[in-house]
């Protein structure tokens, strides 16, 4: 069983590290809607998938945060990606299986995954 002793070891390990995570103006923000509508539509595993993916890839300038209802409940789970230049992309009906593609294509390489965006959903 995990004990708090392990947390002490983690603290010692972290002391030796210089925090190179900068959440300044160059940060990308991944915003997951976590109101009732989002949660009921499956936002929790999506949020977890984004947090895990960002940590696994060790992406320093990416912050995964949550927000409330943005008034487009029928499109939940909704994920908004804000790039450093202020450009916003709205992904809709997001599933955990889509997360790797959004991270690799959009957040790392800068190519919006158009097929998952709200514009694509409205056209379809």
């Amino acid at each position, binding site marked *: *069983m*995990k004990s*708090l002793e*392990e*947390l*002490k070891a*983690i*603290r010692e*390990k*972290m002391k030796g590290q210089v925090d190179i995570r900068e959440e300044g103006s160059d940060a990308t923000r991944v915003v997951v809607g*976590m*109101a*009732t*509508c989002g*949660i*009921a539509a499956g936002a*929790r*595993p999506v*949020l*977890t998938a984004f*947090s895990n993916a960002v*940590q696994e890839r*060790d992406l320093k300038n990416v912050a995964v*945060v*949550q927000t*409330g*209802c*943005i*008034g487009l*409940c029928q499109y939940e789970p909704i994920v908004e990606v804000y790039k450093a230049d202020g450009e916003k992309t709205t992904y809709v009906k997001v599933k955990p299986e889509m997360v790797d593609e959004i991270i690799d294509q959009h957040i790392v390489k800068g190519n919006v995954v158009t097929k998952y965006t709200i514009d694509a959903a409205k056209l379809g």
Partner: protein
Amino acid sequence: MMTEISLNILDVAQNSVRAEASLIEISVDIDSAADRLAVKIKDNGCGMTEEQVRSVTDPFFTTRTTRKIGLGIPFFKQSAELTGGSFSIRSELGKGTETEAVYVLSSIDRMPLGNMTQTIHSLVTMNTHIDFLYTYSADGRSFTLDTREFREILGSGDFDAPEVSAFIKDYLAENHAEVSKLAE
């Protein structure tokens, strides 16, 4: 409608986050002998007026302005009452709010508890400025997660740092498994 009790808990705890609580206490207590599963969510946030408390179980009441419907509390209440259980909410302006849902454990209409590890982990790592006291008990066995202890050991609230976040996830998963196993 949520598909897991743990999703209702995540949703209702978001109300405590928005109420600017500094401490949110969540407990899940399974008692097979009494055939009940009780969930309590208590915060020290801004609380509500008597009028608001009366209206909050009404789906057509919300303080939000983005839309006119608020389903969080109604869903939670309905999920418990469907099983023949009960629901209560108490709140005091400036003091905080406490909600309790009691489910009849063996009811066919009781949704599964679901992934409590994911619920508590996302609450703790996404709201590092808030303390959480989480207790999970099953038939006399229990474990507690207290972020005030974590904060003291770490000397900070870096619950979203990769190592700490991974520790919290494992701590929850392993302790949930351990308590459930012993309770069987």
